[in-house]
């Protein structure tokens, strides 16, 4: 009984993973023309997000500092 439940859960989880893989395959090739402007914009976006993550991490660390 327990094993059957575990198997069903694993199958459900497997289905989600398979779906995510299918989505990744479907959109694997970005269709946008990667001009210099697009590359710079995406780079700036990455830098911005890293900056935000660092700010959040700093806040988290300083909030829990004794």
């Amino acid at each position, binding site marked *: 009984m327990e094993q059957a439940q575990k198997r069903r859960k694993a199958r459900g989880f497997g289905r989600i993973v398979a*779906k995510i893989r299918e*989505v*990744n395959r*479907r*959109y*694997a*090739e*970005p*269709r*946008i*023309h990667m001009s210099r*402007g*697009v590359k710079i*914009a*995406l780079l700036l*976006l990455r830098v*911005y*997000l890293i900056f*935000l993550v660092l*700010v*959040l991490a700093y*806040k988290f660390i300083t909030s829990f500092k004794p």
Partner: protein
Amino acid sequence: MRLLPSIYYRYRRIRKNLAILASIIGPGIIVMVADNDAGGITTYSVTGATFLYSFIWIELLLGPVAYVCQEMTVRLGAITKRGHAEAIFDAFGPFWGWFSLTDLTLTDVLTIVTEFIGMTAAMKIFGISPLLTSIAVILLIMAMVVQGRYWTWEKIVLVFCVVNLIYVPAAFLVNPPWTSVLRNGVVPGFPFGLNGTVFFFLMANIGTTIAPWMIFFQQSSIVDKELKERDIKWERLDTAVGAVFTVLVAIFLIIIVATVLPGSNIQDAAQASIQILGINKYVGAVMAIGLFDAGLLGAVCISLTSSWAFGEIFGWAHSLNVKVTQAPWFFIFRLVILSVAAGIVLIPGAPLVAITLFVQVIAVTLLPAALTFLLLLLNQEEVVGKYKNSLAQNIVAIAIIVAIITLSTLFAISTLFPNLIR
């Protein structure tokens, strides 16, 4: 002799155009009015109480700002027939796609929590318990889509949008000093100086102008409504009317609170409603109804945004034009989002203030990405064809997007570190 046929022809043409407009109008008004959600109503109430009429000119400027951003989603949605989530996956690949989708869902759930905070607080004023309010709201939102027609859903939501305009007549009930409103409100300036607190409120007001969910919502609703290239001009008008409505609500709410509670130290819109209730029971009741309606509109639209986005990516049936049994995951996902948000609000001692502040921070992780992707896609001729941004459109859009990103980021940072700016 030709006068009569000419008048008749003009009449027929106007009638036809009005009929087209009536059938297309919806997504623009809904997204713009829903932008004045429970959080927005609180921002305007506190702004009015703190700085009286002096922020009105800023609200007037924010209408066109919101229009410029949302107009781009109109073109993208009508031409590509794809929601924003799908457009991001397709154009930028899985990394940016998953980032946008997960961030959107997290932001949406947390924002819906703030909508439930507003709705339950508003209904508490009328003696209705938070549990009853939450259950009734979820049932109402789900009942609106049972019929399986986008048109029905849209017309009901448009009624909620009209209710949101309740602040306009209510402002006349408090007899504001109109000459003072015009002198201090319409003429640009900072009579309170330009200190840290003013700058914080400036950021808060600009921060409420564009939220990430708005971009995803309008594009998906245009796709769901099956609007086409020829409908773009009407949808632009719809969005412009919505921008006027959103500015009207903001301005008249500021006028009410600035007139009735000048200089009072209120923390949120519910508190403002209670205080106004003690002075003018009708206006106080209107304030509470308006807050509830704003939260409801927010919950209706934001829960739909994530459901549409997930449906687009996972390939579920994701339309309001189908019955619940034909798109079970679309509706279950929406129900789960609403239930989780309502559940969080109902947990005794839940850190609701922290969640309200955290929403601002999480939203700025997605907003720059969503706006940047929008701008990049609107510059791809192979994506939008002749509807590509012109040079003038790009200059205006880039200036607005840079300003929004900068001010929203500063607002989020000042939320995390309150002593930094104020």
